[in-house]
């Protein structure tokens, strides 16, 4: 991060903090909007102009729709949103298909998409849909512009909805210790996920030994285990990167008492593909569900074949949202098929009444879901279709499982982080259960046997109740040591931009 970035961010934070304490709603919204536009203008004044034009256009479309709700007006609004998105996001990919050096290719290279356009365009569309479906949303122009540009979420989401944001923009929130504490914790958690775990997974323990090298530097010759670990590793990399980023922005907004929608909810613990899609990039998957799948599926619900088809179409759109690449389309299509097969499997299970012990069934279901999701990430990350195909071939070739093409550290690191994630998640759940048992024992107000778990529960409770009394010194100490080390090394953090800023 450059000095000017820190300067801009400081001013943005200051404006937000000042605005947050203002008693007048309008003044507060003006300061929030000023902070948001300043934040966005840092990526380019031109981009800010596009965002403002889009906000004005959507607001006018919304007003027109409210005056008379017609499908044609909605379609005009949709088209006006999708045309700029198509121009900035999909046209360059198509133009670059031409020969290098041709005018089409050069033009494609020159078109740069405004940061976060996919996210705020979808926010604008959701507003139009909400008006069309006669939701009770009536923002002022100022409020709508703030909704479109709200600085914590403008760059890479989460994709917000006006009905949940509008009341928060309108109410004065007092300084709340819970918001401050939870927001700070989530921010710190995000920093650790994004700048430590994702960074290490991406670059590897030694240069050229990470996930990025496994996809970008190897031209072929992957073994079966290599591909599995690359898929699993990339899944975790994407999760730590995007969920870490989401934690950071949700945390910052929460400090200022604004609750943004959640984006991830322990997706790798999902036991079915359907559950996975209610936990992974939730703000987008719910958007697709609410504004694409549900309306279209409902329209043709009398045909039994229609919902599965709509599901596949919706998931393909989900993949396409990430960019104009065949691999993204195949990624969406793949997940659409997996969801349809899962539904069919559920129906068959009911018919044949297959019985397994509950825990065994849940474990097998989790394993299958985790495996399928991890394979799907190969499509998502592969540089082209040929690479994706070559990698999948290795997965389905038994002989390839005896061949290991990646450096030794790659296997150790990727499997350690993947297993570590599950161990930490399970450990955290265990601590919470001990604490709950302790609370239960306390609430019964009787002398419990000095059971080991109760003592641990008491310790966990003690530390949780006084979280900042030990976390603040620990973080301060760590931060001081990190700054000292960086000063001594004359080093800068090798920040890899959040992956989703590319979409």
């Amino acid at each position, binding site marked *: 991060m450059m000095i000017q970035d820190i300067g801009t961010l400081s001013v943005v934070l200051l404006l937000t903090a000042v605005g947050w304490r203002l008693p007048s709603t309008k003044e507060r919204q003006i300061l929030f909007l000023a902070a948001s536009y300043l934040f966005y203008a840092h990526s380019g004044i031109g981009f800010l102009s596009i965002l403002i034009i889009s906000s004005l256009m959507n607001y006018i479309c919304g007003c027109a729709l409210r005056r008379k709700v017609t499908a044609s007006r909605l379609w005009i609004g949709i088209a006006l949103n999708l045309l700029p998105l198509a121009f900035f996001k999909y046209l360059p990919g198509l133009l670059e298909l031409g020969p290098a050096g041709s005018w089409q290719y050069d033009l494609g290279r020159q078109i740069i998409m405004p940061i976060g356009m996919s996210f705020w365009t979808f926010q604008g569309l959701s507003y139009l849909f909400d008006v069309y479906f006669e939701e009770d949303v009536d923002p002022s122009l100022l409020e709508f512009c703030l909704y479109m540009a709200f600085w914590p979420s403008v760059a890479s989401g989460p994709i917000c909805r006006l009905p949940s944001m509008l009341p928060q923009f309108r109410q004065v929130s007092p300084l709340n210790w819970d918001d401050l504490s939870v927001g700070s914790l989530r921010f710190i958690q995000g920093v650790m996920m994004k*700048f430590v775990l994702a960074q290490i997974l991406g670059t590897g323990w030694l240069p050229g030994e990470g996930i990025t090298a496994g996809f970008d530097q190897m031209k072929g010759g992957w073994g079966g285990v290599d591909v599995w670990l690359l898929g699993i590793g990339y899944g975790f990399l994407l999760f730590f990167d995007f969920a870490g980023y989401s934690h950071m922005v949700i945390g910052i907004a929460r400090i200022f008492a604004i609750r943004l929608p959640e984006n991830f909810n322990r997706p790798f613990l999902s036991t079915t593909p359907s559950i996975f899609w209610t936990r992974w990039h939730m703000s987008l998957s719910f958007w697709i569900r609410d504004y694409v799948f549900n309306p279209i599926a409902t329209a043709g619900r009398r045909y039994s074949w229609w919902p599965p088809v709509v599901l596949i179409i919706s998931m393909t759109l989900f993949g396409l949202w990430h960019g104009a690449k065949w691999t993204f389309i195949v990624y969406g299509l793949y997940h659409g098929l997996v969801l349809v097969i899962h539904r069919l499997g559920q129906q068959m299970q009911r018919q044949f009444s297959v019985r397994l012990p509950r825990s065994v069934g849940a474990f097998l279901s989790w394993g299958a879901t985790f495996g399928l999701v991890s394979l799907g990430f190969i499509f998502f990350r592969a540089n082209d279709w040929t690479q994706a195909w070559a990698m999948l071939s290795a997965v389905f070739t038994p002989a390839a499982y005896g061949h290991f093409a990646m450096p030794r550290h790659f296997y150790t690191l990727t499997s350690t982080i993947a297993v570590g994630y599950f161990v930490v998640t399970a450990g955290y759940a265990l601590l919470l259960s001990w604490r709950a048992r302790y609370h239960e024992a306390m609430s019964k*107000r009787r002398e419990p046997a000095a059971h080991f778990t109760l003592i641990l529960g008491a310790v966990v409770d003690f530390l949780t109740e006084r979280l900042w009394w030990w976390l603040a010194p*620990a973080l301060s100490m760590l931060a001081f*040591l990190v700054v000292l080390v960086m000063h001594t090394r004359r080093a800068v953090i090798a920040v890899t931009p959040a992956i989703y800023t590319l979409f």
Partner: protein
Amino acid sequence: MSGPPFAWQANLTPMERGATGCSMSTEKHAMSRLPVLRHFYTVADPFCDISTQSLTLKMLLLSRCFYRVVAILMLNTLIIFACFELATRGVFKIATVISKPTEQLVGEGSPREKVSYYSSEDWAKLYWYEFRLSRTQRYYPYVGWRRAPFKGKTIEIDQNGVRLTPGADCSAKAFKVFTFGASDMWGTGAPNWGTIPANLQKGLAKLRQGPVCVMNFAESAYVVMQDVIMLLMQLRSDNVPDVALFYNIGGDIYAAYQSGRAGVVENLDQMAAKFEGRRKPFTFVDWLRSTNSYMLIDYLVGKLTVANPQQNEPTPRQLLTYESMGIDVATLSDLIAQDYLRNYKIVNTLAHEYGFKPFFFLPPNVSLGNKPLTSEEQAMKHEAESDVALYKLATAVYQAIERESSQYQNLYSLVHIFDRYDSLMWIDGGHVTPSGNQVIAASILDRIQTPSSDKK
């Protein structure tokens, strides 16, 4: 049975149950009219009781509360740091036990270890590992330091700190050649069988009848005066050579570059400070840097950061050198050259007295001469010349000595020795590959193989 579930809770007063030792008061927020203080009570310390009307008492209680908050935070910081330090110490202990030392050491050193020459040499990894292990220096009378004894597969050093020359037969009637110099003559970058003395041994053994004994008295960071003292110590113990080779000037140049004075040892200031018991004050930051916690964070940060391109190494101007002391390069180089030539004269006088033949060689340098450099060597040259003060001084010293060399019968410059070689010879600004040592040894051999160099 009713009552508190744990005895330790039953014994606590309500005040003690709070984290800060204060009790909660519902009216405390209303009592404070200052928003900042109100926030302080609610956010920083929700347990402080300041429910009093008196402003003086309120301030007093606030001070007490503030003191408690700070004290608890500081105590917690110390406890957490102590725990972290213990944990990291454990981590390092475990890491030491489970990791192989070769993996720890190889590849973490200077760029010369990664020079392409070594990638095809199967001994290279082991050599650089042993090189690190063998770097321990011990005090040695009159000259200051020599390496500690070491026995490896590529480096072997005896009890006197002398590096082994394979094949040397130092029996009574052997033809003795003593080589003196700094790290380049010692053989940095070369295994025992690839040093200049080892190549001389092989060459002389082929050319001469009878036993040949080449002894490598060179040592890293020596100046010529230390070489002369090493010779004196051999003569005093009646160990007289047939030929004495002096292959050094880099040490004298670097020592003068550091201290601004000619005729001193390298790292003079540090050595003087040690001897005089002068110490840089040990600051809190120095102490922190010596902790295991710092080392662990340093290791992890090293994995997650890159060097700041705008603030790499300190520029030569920031270093304390002869130039920053305001000493003129021409004056200093003349003084170094004069010292060098006086040493030549002393050795020559000793040679007449003891009956051996002395030779002085000016070692080659990547920045001097006209060798067609490989791309790797060009990078080394660029790196060497980036320290302009050192480069200017080295050039001036070589020119000054070369001007006088015609008056000195056994003084030779090897600056242009690699001019005919296209292949990679250098591993850094001052050290060469074993192939380079072979070329240098052949050139030295040509010069010492005259009838007059036979045993007196």
